[in-house]
């Protein structure tokens, strides 16, 4: 009897283990398991939409602007407490500063890589999913991924580069950094391989679709920017030409009027032009309020169900995290006209009004009312036509450096034509112009750098413009970075920051966030910040 009992119980054990295995396979109740996804072309399209949705998440979109402004001279701390931002403004950046966290960018990159890994499999499952649709989605994924890597290289220098999708825990998570020039080359190569597969437009009726998604021209703009960073100027000019000659984009015009100004010393009369209120309002509204204008090439879309993250940063000034640095803006950037006080560069009012970063906070130039939190739906412009013109001008100026004599002067004059288009539109004043009779590469280069600051104030470009010009030809013009310190930090920290920038060029890049150093055994900290303590437990 005892033996029989033992036998029965062992038999039950065997039955239980073999038959219940299937019953123990559970699927989640909210959401879809990965092995049940990737079945149709709608699945692929939704995943692509997800990539854009990740771009407009708070962390990524904030850093797209903040990384380009926080170490530069146009923003300064407001009265609302943000200790991480304050420490950055003082030049005391540690790996514990949350703005050094690149995780949200790598999430976008991983989503792009995941799409590239699984979308081809859908071709076999869903017959209505065509090869061209696949290429369209893949190209957008590569485009967005390249954009992410370009931002990471410019902010961190050497970074980990991966095209592997991370899907389960059997993969090795640790990855080492690659040299920044190599990553830039890979990214350029990736982008060039897909740019012709991107469409020139997505919709004939909706401008939002053509600006909110990655078009071929967005790809050209990114390539021009990357080649400019790489110091390959002919390629920059070529890609800028493609965008400008397409006829798809146009600078928003500003209506002007003029007034006669009499010079009392010699009795001559000059015509001084100024922008009408309506003209200024039109520009501000089209670019920064309504958005998706004819000038915009790639613009991240926000809406009432997803507001942008700039309310506490800019809108509640002066008790906001950041306010415009009026010292720099009024003393160096925008100077009063020598002709008449009615002549003003419209960009001064457009970027900074009522001591607030007006491009994000304001609804119009004539009213003092700032946006409410629910009204923070202004889009984030990544590339617009004005930047293409100034990139081409900068590239032509550098091409002129290898020329001499009349040929150089002509090339410089060609470059200035593009700059003048931007200046005329904005009614730039003569006080900020350079002496046109004595052109040289260095004066034109510095002129373009200042013009870029005037045009793209607070659009997340300033730091990259300064660093790009400073590092050119092996930091021949480190002075741009060192001089910026006078305005970019508080008076008692200027000398220390200038020493940091001059003595170790690795200080131009951000440290890697501590969390990544601790979990990634192959990742080493930027040597300027590297101090031997974090990232222990390396085997």
């Amino acid at each position, binding site marked *: 009897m005892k033996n029989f009992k033992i036998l029965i119980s062992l038999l039950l054990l065997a039955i239980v283990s073999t038959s219940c*295995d299937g019953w123990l396979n559970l699927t989640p109740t909210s959401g879809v398991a990965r092995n049940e996804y990737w079945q149709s072309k709608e699945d692929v399209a939704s995943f692509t939409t997800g990539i854009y949705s990740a771009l407009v998440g708070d962390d990524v979109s904030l850093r797209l602007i903040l990384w380009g402004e926080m170490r530069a001279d146009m923003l300064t701390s407001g009265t609302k407490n943000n200790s991480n931002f304050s420490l950055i403004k003082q030049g005391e950046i540690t790996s514990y500063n949350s703005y050094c966290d690149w995780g949200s960018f790598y999430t976008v990159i991983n989503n792009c890589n995941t799409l590239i890994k699984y979308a081809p499999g859908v071709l076999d499952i869903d017959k209505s999913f065509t090869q061209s649709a696949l290429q369209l989605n893949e190209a957008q994924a590569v485009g967005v991924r390249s954009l992410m890597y370009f931002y990471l290289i410019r902010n961190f220098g050497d970074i980990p580069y991966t095209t592997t999708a991370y899907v389960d*825990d059997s993969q090795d998570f640790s990855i080492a950094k690659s040299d920044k020039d190599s990553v830039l080359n890979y990214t350029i190569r990736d982008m060039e391989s897909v740019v012709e597969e991107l469409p020139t437009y997505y919709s004939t009726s909706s401008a939002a679709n053509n600006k909110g998604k990655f078009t071929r021209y967005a790809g050209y703009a990114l390539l021009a920017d990357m080649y400019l960073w790489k110091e390959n100027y002919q390629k920059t000019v070529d890609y800028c030409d493609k965008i400008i000659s397409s006829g798809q984009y146009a600078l928003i015009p500003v209506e002007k009027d003029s007034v006669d100004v009499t010079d009392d010393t010699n009795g001559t009369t000059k015509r001084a032009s100024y922008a009408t209120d309506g003209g200024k309002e039109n520009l501000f509204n089209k670019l920064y309020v309504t958005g998706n204008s004819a000038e915009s090439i790639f613009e991240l879309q926000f809406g009432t169900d997803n507001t942008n993250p700039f309310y506490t940063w800019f809108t509640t000034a002066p008790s906001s995290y950041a306010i415009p640095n009026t010292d720099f803006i009024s003393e160096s950037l925008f100077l009063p006209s020598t002709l008449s006080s009615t002549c003003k560069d419209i960009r001064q009012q457009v970027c900074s009004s009522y001591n607030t970063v007006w491009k994000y906070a304001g609804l119009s130039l004539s009213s003092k009312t700032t946006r409410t939190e629910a009204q923070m739906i202004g889009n984030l412009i990544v590339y617009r036509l004005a930047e293409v013109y100034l990139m081409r001008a900068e590239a032509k100026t550098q091409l002129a450096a290898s020329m001499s004599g009349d040929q150089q002067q002509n090339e410089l004059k060609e470059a200035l034509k593009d700059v003048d288009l931007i200046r005329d539109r904005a009614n730039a004043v003569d006080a900020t112009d350079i002496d046109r009779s004595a052109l040289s590469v260095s004066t034109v280069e510095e002129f373009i750098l200042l013009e870029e600051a005037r045009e793209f104030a607070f659009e997340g470009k300033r730091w990259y413009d300064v660093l790009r010009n400073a590092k050119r030809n092996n930091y021949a013009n480190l002075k741009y970075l060192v001089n910026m310190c006078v305005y970019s930090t508080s008076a008692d920290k200027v000398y220390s920051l200038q020493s940091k920038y001059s003595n170790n060029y690795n200080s131009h890049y951000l440290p890697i966030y501590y969390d990544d150093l601790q*979990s990634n055994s192959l990742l080493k900290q930027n040597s300027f910040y590297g101090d031997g303590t974090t990232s222990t437990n390396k085997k």
Partner: protein
Amino acid sequence: MVSAYTQCQYSLLDRYLFNFTGRYDGNSRFGKDNRWGFFPSVSTRWRISGEPFLKKLTSKWLNELSFRASWGVNGSEPSTDYASVSTYQLYSYSYLGSTGIYPSSLELSKLKWERGTQFNLGLNFSAFDNRFSIDAELYRKRTNDLFFKNLSIPSTTGFSSVAYMNVGRMDNNGWELSINMTPVRRKDLVVSFSMNLARNENKIQKISNMVSNESGSWNSRGMIRKWVEGQPLGSYYGYKSEGVYLNDDQTIARDASGNKIYTYDDSGTAQAVKMKFGYPSIAYEFQPGDAKYKDQNHDGNIDYQDIVYLGNANPLLTGGFGPNIRYKQWSTNAYFNFRYGNKIYNYAKWNMERMYGFDNQSKATLRRWHHSYGDPSTAPKNLLPRALYSKGYNDMGSDRYIEDGSFLRWKSLTIKYTFTREQLKHTFIQDANIYLTLQNLYCWTKYTGQDPEVSINTSPSSDTSGYDYATSPRSKEYTLGISLTF
């Protein structure tokens, strides 16, 4: 979850006992390959006092002497249901009118049962008509495939953490000793005394290189925790605090012999080198009134090389004791508990003296540095650093906040009067007693914070063991009660 369980027990001559159990579990929270686990356990007891050779010698005074040993394995599963599945979810907002989808987690296909193997050795000794007894126990619990919840993984994977991962092996060892004696046992008076002691240690034997063995660093504000494989967990690391810089002269860097350090500027004149924090990446120059940290290597720079070991959160000994006295109808019972040899991080004190943000601060900040003291001997003792808003490095983890957490607490006192049947025979009540219990009477300790009995829970995923957040204070309780049986 599906389980099958079996148990066998065998006893021989009332002296030798054996017990075996086995269980076989399958759980849906694991992936297909790691779903099932087998967990056996075996235990044995040898009543040495029942052995004939011992009985002859000791039966007059020895009541019980037995020796116990057991070994068993049990398994833990994750507490989240779909950890092994990679779930795709919708964004809560739309982009250009469509809703996007994204992968919300990695698939944890390799996650398996966490297996805890416990080995116990025990001794029971009882003598003199059970008036003296000792219970001793030695245990070692080894956890293999240790779970780590919400492990941070490299963010280059696109994910910042995984819900669970098996990361290594942890040992939890210790011993427990319990002694009871009844020196007086008469009809009217019984006096007994009991005491228990214990010591416990957690050590990590092996761990994946994704788990950080460090939390906090030389330039992050707050305490640093570090552990080393093979050593007990719960250590604190930080700077040694030396008060504040009272005047400008004190902020000049000194070498090992105490001489000032000078450098020469461009024109050849000597310039004093000021103490700095974190040169070259931070290069903050200390000002009079700033917190002074000990420059261990005398290089004029306060950085990671000045971090030292500050103590450990684990006690050397914990335990309790108390007498129990019964005289006629009165009985009284007292209990004391104690902890010895642990260090507490007074987190509440750090938070209320930092003066870094907008939080309310304690009155201690009234004795902060306000002005330079030309003559350091005129300065009051225990000055706090100057108040700085979102700046400076006056609130780094240092021994200013580490205190000895040893304490002895009079935990409870109960006085009870039991009515005899005689006294109750005219009432309808069968039994009655009335009692007064006082709890948390007094605590003897050198700790300056609210309550030294902080939670000590050392594990690789918990870096806050031994922290005193000073949340709700412990209440003193008085209970007067009456117990009746009808």
